[in-house]
């Protein structure tokens, strides 16, 4: 008999704060959009940096870390080294995220403190993952993705801390030298490679897909990993051609990964279009548009194209992939804790029964509309569209928060 992981579901009280805090940060990030002037958007402005950290640290990282508490044993097929460490991760990440956001907005002196707190939180996370990986006897491709992505996260947060120290004036060097290295390590190296690896376990699991080749994933992960390393080298040693080679490699990596997702989608036996499936369809469609708009940016050179691509990457691809999976992960964890002991003794709900239909659909429709409107606002420089998009996203994010609380409190 083949043994599979034993400790699949850590206590829900350990993971619930990640999802609650993460969903609230999704709402805060959506509300924050009201404060942008669509005619004066720029990557360099502190308001933008605060927004990016609010969204990526407070929402994306918070939810990914919480989800990993449950998914690591599923993917690595061994129990956690010390799952209790996750009790320390979310409060530190919460405090660090807030310090960084307020640091960018009001007082750069807060940035090193926020950076150190985030660093401690992430080091605990990365350390726990690495120590868990020591138990793994044979690395599969998906397990390798966890190893690679966490290695990039380790370096990404070191770069980030150095930048925070320079931003606050504690260290003296040009922040721009490390900017791309930090961005690519964390976003390309950690978030994208984590998504690549985990989605190839989760998407087929929920769609019941089988018998597809993992070659495109191997190509995608390898190219993306090399691309991130090239960007780091090009940043540190100012080699611009290497950076362009890296961008091209990252582009091909995403195409290869998208091809695999498309194959899984086309061959899936489970064709019902629930909120999970629809969220993923929107997410991967957004990813395709990121590639198109990103390519246009390199041809035309307009900053608004790069801003629109980044926006779609964050609120289109990342956000919908995360919210879609939340509708699978929270019901499972709650069901496992509350209802699995009752199986065979009384009627128990199915996982799909635990997803609130109206608020999940409202979240999907309002958030998707908001994402499209804000994309148009960025491209056209329209404050009217920005306000409209922000309004839709705020309603969508409130519906998401409501869904999260409904699922957590399901009785």
């Amino acid at each position, binding site marked *: *008999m083949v043994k599979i992981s034993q400790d*699949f579901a850590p206590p829900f009280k350990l993971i619930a704060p990640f999802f609650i805090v993460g969903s609230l940060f999704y709402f805060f990030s959506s509300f924050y959009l009201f404060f942008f002037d669509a005619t004066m958007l720029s990557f360099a402005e502190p308001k933008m940096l605060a927004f990016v950290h609010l969204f990526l640290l407070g929402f994306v990282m918070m939810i990914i870390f919480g989800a990993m508490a449950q998914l690591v044993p599923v993917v690595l097929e061994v129990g956690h080294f010390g799952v209790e460490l996750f009790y320390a991760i979310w409060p530190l990440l919460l405090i660090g995220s807030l310090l960084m956001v307020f640091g960018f907005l009001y007082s750069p002196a807060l940035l090193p403190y926020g950076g150190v707190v985030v660093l401690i939180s992430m080091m605990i996370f990365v350390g726990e993952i690495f120590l868990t990986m020591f138990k793994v006897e044979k690395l599969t491709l998906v397990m390798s993705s966890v190893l690679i992505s966490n290695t990039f996260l380790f370096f990404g947060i070191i770069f980030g801390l150095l930048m925070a120290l320079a931003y606050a004036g504690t260290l003296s060097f040009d922040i721009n030298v490390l900017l791309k290295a930090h961005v690519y390590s964390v976003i390309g190296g950690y978030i994208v490679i984590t998504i690549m690896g985990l989605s190839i376990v989760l998407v087929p699991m*929920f769609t*019941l897909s089988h*018998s597809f080749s993992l070659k495109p994933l191997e190509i995608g992960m390898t190219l993306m990993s090399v691309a991130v390393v090239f960007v780091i080298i090009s940043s540190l040693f100012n080699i611009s051609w290497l950076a362009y080679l890296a961008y091209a490699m990252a582009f091909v990596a995403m195409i290869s990964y998208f091809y695999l997702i498309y194959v899984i989608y086309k061959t899936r*036996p489970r064709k*019902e279009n629930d909120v999970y499936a629809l969220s993923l369809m929107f997410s991967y469609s957004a990813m395709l548009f990121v590639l198109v708009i990103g390519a246009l940016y390199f041809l035309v050179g307009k900053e608004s194209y790069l801003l629109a691509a980044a926006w779609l990457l964050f609120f289109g691809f990342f956000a919908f992939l995360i919210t879609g999976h939340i509708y699978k992960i929270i019901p499972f964890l709650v069901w496992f804790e509350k209802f*699995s002991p009752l199986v065979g003794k009384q009627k128990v709900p*199915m996982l799909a029964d635990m997803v609130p239909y109206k608020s999940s659909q409202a979240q999907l429709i309002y958030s998707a509309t908001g994402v499209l409107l804000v994309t148009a606002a960025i491209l056209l420089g329209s404050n009217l569209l920005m306000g409209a998009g922000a309004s839709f996203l705020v309603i969508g994010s409130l519906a998401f928060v409501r869904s999260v609380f409904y699922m957590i409190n399901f009785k």
Partner: protein
Amino acid sequence: MAMYTKEELFKAISTVIDPEVGFNLVEMGLIYDASSDDEGNVKVTMTLSTKACPLHQMILQWVKEAVEKLPNVKDVDVEVVWEPEWNISMADDNVKKALGAL
């Protein structure tokens, strides 16, 4: 002489529902074989829809408990195999239809 036929054992196991898809394990085609001897020892051979199934241990326990409810069953051995790999063609038509695969 077998205490229970394969059909009787499958019927007992069909009370176990996969909470993710909402169908029982037998109609999903996850139960490959079941047999018993005259002393009440039962052997069930089954698979799961994915190796990464987070309910792996729990589903095995449910199968064991479902068979143990049959009178005079002494011991239940549940073996999980990955060959042949499960695919939707192994499921009953009502499952395929409900999932949109038919």
